[in-house]
C-alpha cells in the first residue's frame, strides 16, 4: 500500500517525452500510474522503449527488463548492446532515474546497494545511473525495519554515489535535495510535520509551499 502510494507520487515527476530508467522494487510499480503519458523507458540490458508487461502466455524469454522479467516494447523502441545502454547513461541522456535507497544524506549522497556483513549483491548499474542521470529520484520507506531514519546527515552504509539525489519520495514525505540542504515540500497523511522531522536524521527546511497530502 505504502509502496503503491510512493510509486504513484513518483509517477507525477515524469512528463511526456522523457527518457527514464527505473530501478527494481518500488520503481517498477511506477508505470501503473502514468496514464497516457508517453515515457521512453530505458533498461541497462539494451532496450529503449519498454512497454507494459505481456499477457500471461505471451511472454518472450528474449524480451526482458534488466531484472529478467518479460516486457513488451512501444512504437519507436530500439534494441542495442549494454555498452550503448551505458553510453546513454554516462553521457547524461537519461532524464530521470528512480532508484530504491537504503540511506540518503542531506547532501544527496546515496547508499543503496549493500549492508556490510549481509550478502554482497554487487552494485550492478546503480553507480552509473545515480552519478550521471539528469534527475535522480530515490523512493523508499522513510525508516528502516528497526524504525531508524534512512534520511541522515551522513551515510554510514557503503555509498553508491555522492551528491547525486535530487528528490526523495517516501511513505511519509517528499523532500528536495537543494544546495542549502533538505527541503520538505510534502507530508503524507496520516503523518504530520513533527513526525517527519523526528524520523529524519538531518536538518529539514520547510518549503513555503509545504503541503499535506491526504
Amino acid at each position: 500500500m505504502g509502496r503503491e502510494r510512493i510509486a504513484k507520487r513518483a509517477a507525477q515527476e515524469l512528463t511526456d517525452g522523457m527518457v527514464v530508467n527505473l530501478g527494481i522494487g518500488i520503481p517498477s510499480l511506477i508505470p501503473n500510474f502514468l496514464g497516457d503519458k508517453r515515457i521512453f523507458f530505458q533498461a541497462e540490458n539494451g532496450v529503449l522503449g519498454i512497454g507494459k508487461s505481456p499477457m500471461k502466455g505471451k511472454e518472450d524469454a528474449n524480451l526482458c527488463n534488466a531484472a529478467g522479467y518479460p516486457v513488451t516494447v512501444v512504437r519507436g523502441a530500439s534494441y542495442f548492446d549494454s555498452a550503448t545502454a551505458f553510453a546513454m547513461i554516462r553521457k547524461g541522456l537519461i532524464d530521470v532515474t528512480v532508484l530504491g535507497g537504503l540511506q540518503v544524506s542531506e547532501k544527496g549522497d546515496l547508499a543503496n546497494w549493500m549492508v556490510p556483513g549481509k550478502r554482497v549483491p554487487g552494485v550492478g548499474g546503480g553507480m552509473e545511473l545515480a552519478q550521471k542521470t539528469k534527475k535522480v529520484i530515490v523512493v523508499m520507506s522513510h525508516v528502516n525495519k528497526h524504525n531508524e531514519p534512512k534520511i541522515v546527515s551522513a551515510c554510514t552504509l557503503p555509498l553508491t554515489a555522492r551528491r547525486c539525489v535530487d528528490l526523495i519520495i517516501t511513505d511519509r514525505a517528499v523532500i528536495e535535495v537543494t544546495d542549502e540542504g533538505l527541503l520538505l515540500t510534502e507530508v503524507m497523511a496520516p503523518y504530520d510535520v513533527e513526525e517527519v522531522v523526528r524520523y529524519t536524521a538531518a536538518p529539514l527546511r520547510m518549503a513555503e509551499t509545504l503541503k499535506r497530502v491526504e
Partner: protein
Amino acid sequence: MIQNEYGKIISIEQAISYITDGCSLMVGGFGGVGSPPSLLQAIIEKGVGGLTLICNDTAFPHLGVGPLICEGRVKKAIVSHIGSNPVAGQRMRDGALDVEFCPQGVLVERIRAGGAGLGGILVDIGVDHEWFAAGKQVIEVNGKRFLLELPLTADVSIVYAKKADPFGNLIYDKSARNTNPLVAMAGTITIAEVEEIVPLGALDPEAIVTPGVFVHYIVQSNGVNWKWIWEENESPNGQHKN
C-alpha cells in the same frame, strides 16, 4: 543443406574442446537472458573446473551461468552483481569463490575495450569509492580525476545469437542481444551458439550486428533447457514487475 565454406560450423563437442580447466571464459547474457544454453550444459557435463568467469552477473542458480557457480566450476568471477544467485554469495563468504565486482557500465566497457584492442579506459565512476577505486591507477586529466580500468579478454568467449551464416555473421533477438556483441569481440576464440544457421547471403548486410570476422566457431543450439524465473514464480502481473 548449409555449406560449411569457412570450416566454422562445428559440433558442440568440438566447441567444448577449447574450454579447458583453469581457462578464462567470457559468457554473453544478462540475468541468464541471452546466455548460450547448450554450450553451458556441455561445459557442466564435460566437468571442467577452475574457470575464471567473466559475465554481466552470476544469473540465477538454475539458469544461465548459474549452474557453473553452483557446481563449483568457477574459481573467480568478474561480474557486476551476484544478487540473483544466492549460491554465489554463499560460496564467496565460504572463500570458495573469488568475486571481482565491477560497476555494470564499466564492466561492459572493459569487455568492449578488450574486443577493440584498447589498452584501457578512463572512467569517473567510483573514482573516490573506497572499494571500487582500490588498487587502480588514478589518472588526472585537466584537473579531473579518473580511474584507469583495464580491458577484459578471455581464452574463450561464448555467445548466443538468433542466426549465423557460415562466415559467422550474427544477428541477435531483442534484449537477448545485451552483452553478446561485446563478448563476441573479446574472445581469443569466440564460439557462437545460434538458434539457426542460414546460408551465406541470407542475412541483410545492414542488419548484421556482429561481423563474422569476430566469430571463430558456430554451433547449432538445442534450445533453452531451463525454466525462466517468471515461469517458476507466479506470472507477472502489472507492468514492470520485478
